[in-house]
């Protein structure tokens, strides 16, 4: 049922979006050439979907999408081996320097949000919010916590059972990075499934159950589960995952923007232009289809203006190479750094 609804929604949005953006369907079917993309495995599903759909409008353009990880993709991108780099984090100062040394200018385009929902059973009324420290108690390897009472003394003595995505998944990696850090480990006595449906059913049928997966999946199953508000480590306020809180960055630390970086030199080629245009046009709904949260339109429009004006550089680094933190909406009000520098 949800598929039909999503498909309908996608169709409506596609029509609205193409009308709003004035992009239309003016793709040149005889366009030739090749586009090389590499990078993050988290962004891969979106880019893969875009490449697959793009092949229907421009069948002669040969698009390749690799998975080398954000860092590996950047290594190839900053020496000019690839046209577009998928990244699940903004470019680093080190990578920007290498790119500059090799004369590679790039245009930064945020494409979607990646968020994780932490969910419990509907009949679990005691958990009002969780902090990252609470999650560490529950999920870390070697933690003595086995019941909800062990987490907080006034919670009932119900055993905790954990439902988690497979350790191969990007969701698991991301969750592990936040909760356990680079060196820690997540406990192994969990029910693990690669199929998010199994996780939903598991938590829905287990009073003491807790699980986590991509936000998109929670939004589809709101009636079966309850998502726990997570305490934002900076504001110390608990925030529930909604498309709004993920968009404005308040749902932290379990949401992050995903990017593609387009080489300016490659952007001169018509096939790359066509693909990026297609990415703007259909990226949001394809991102939702594969389980991510779409960007607010204002950011997409901003990125599109950046691309059309060939405004190179990143919005996430200061001129001195310091990282800029904060929600995407705030960051994307300013000009990219290299433009500010007058490069």
């Amino acid at each position, binding site marked *: 049922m949800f598929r039909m609804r999503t498909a309908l929604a996608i169709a409506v949005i596609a029509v609205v979006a193409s009308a709003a953006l004035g992009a239309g369907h003016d793709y040149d079917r005889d366009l*030739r050439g*090749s586009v*090389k993309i*590499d990078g993050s495995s988290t962004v*891969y*599903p979106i*880019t*893969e*979907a875009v*490449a*697959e759909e793009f*092949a229907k409008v421009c069948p002669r353009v*040969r*698009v*390749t*999408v*690799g*998975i*080398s990880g954000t860092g590996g993709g950047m290594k190839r991108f900053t*020496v*000019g*081996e690839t046209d577009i780099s998928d990244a699940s984090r903004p470019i680093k100062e080190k990578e920007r320097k290498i790119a500059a040394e090799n004369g590679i200018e790039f245009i930064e385009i945020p494409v979607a949000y990646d968020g994780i929902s932490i969910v419990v059973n509907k009949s679990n009324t005691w958990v009002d919010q969780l902090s990252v420290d609470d999650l560490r108690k529950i999920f870390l390897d070697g933690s003595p916590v086995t019941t909800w009472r062990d987490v907080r003394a006034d919670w009932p003595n119900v055993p905790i059972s954990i439902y988690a*995505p*497979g350790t*191969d*998944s990007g969701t698991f990696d991301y969750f592990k990075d936040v909760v356990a850090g680079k060196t820690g480990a997540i406990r192994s006595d969990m029910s693990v499934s*690669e*199929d*998010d449906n199994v996780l939903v059913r598991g938590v829905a049928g287990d009073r003491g159950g807790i699980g986590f997966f991509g936000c998109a999946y929670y939004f589809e199953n709101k009636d079966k589960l309850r998502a726990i508000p997570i305490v934002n480590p900076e504001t110390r306020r608990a925030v529930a995952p909604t498309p709004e809180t993920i968009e404005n960055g308040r749902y932290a630390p379990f949401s992050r923007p995903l990017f593609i970086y387009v080489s300016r030199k490659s952007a001169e080629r018509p096939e790359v232009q066509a693909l990026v245009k297609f990415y703007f046009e259909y990226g949001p709904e394809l991102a939702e289809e*594969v389980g991510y949260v779409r960007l607010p339109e204002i950011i997409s429009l901003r990125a599109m203006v950046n691309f059309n004006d060939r405004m190179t550089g990143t919005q996430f680094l200061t001129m001195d190479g310091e990282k800029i933190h904060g929600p995407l909406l705030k960051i994307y009000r300013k000009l990219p750094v290299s433009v500010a520098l007058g490069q």
Partner: protein
Amino acid sequence: MTAPSGLVRRGNTQRALKNHVFKWFCGLCAAISVVVLGILLTSLVMQGWEHLDWDFLRSAPSRKPKIAGIGPAMWGTIWICAACAIAALPLGVATAIFLEEYKPVKPPLRRLHSFLQLNISNLAGVPSIVYGILGLTAFVQMFGMIGNLNDPALTVGTPEDWYYFQLPFGRGVLAGGLTLMLVVLPIVIVSSQESLRAVPGSLREGALACGATRWQMVWRMTLPAAVPGIMTGSILAMSRAIGEAAPILVIAGIVFIRFTPHHLMDEFTAMPLQIYDWAGRPQEEFHKVAATGILVLLTILLAFNAFAVLIRQKFQRPLQ
């Protein structure tokens, strides 16, 4: 003194028992491997059967398991294996002939000869990932000595042409094929040497005695006699090449590709990589697609072997 007859009888019973136990032990070992293979094949067929149809062979990979196909990966495998065979077989057989038929007599050359021999035998045992890294530096980048991938030192034609060629090779079919060549070359050489060695010395002596040159002897006597053995070794080597994932992974990476290569510099993906990608996806449905991919890979492998066995049969003539 004990009665020798009694001793002999008891010894006989023991020996017969040992013989019996050993026979059953060997039979059991053989049965275990066959049963494991049987279980593997059955589970593969059961999982992979539903996706196996003509469309699976033709269509490109997709994010939707229902319409995902193995077309580009299959053609990629065919391209790199063809490149590998064309490069490895002549090189390997010629090396084997040199090492077997042109054995030097002078001491320093003999030492060089045995040094070569030792190294080739050792190379056969090197893990294939090492060849992948070697191929990456030697073929993909050519040690960075002649241009780089963005600015090749030499290009012939444009990427649109079927004869497009560039130096360095880049992450293309040719680099992949030559890397596979590195993997299989020691196997081809060693097995060709074995079969050349199995040709009776009298044939060589006879040919030489009739006044044949070494070239005539090799080309008309020893090589034809050794062809069945060389073919067997080459089949095994090529089977290994088809299934190799590690060196190809280093050269090509896991890539989403919807097209088949059309020149030797074109990017590609191979069946083992595609299967690896599918098997690692979270959706259960893709694991079935991976099983289907394995079925196709096995079928190609068997067809390949059958073809080579046919050739072998055709060439096999009794030595007169």
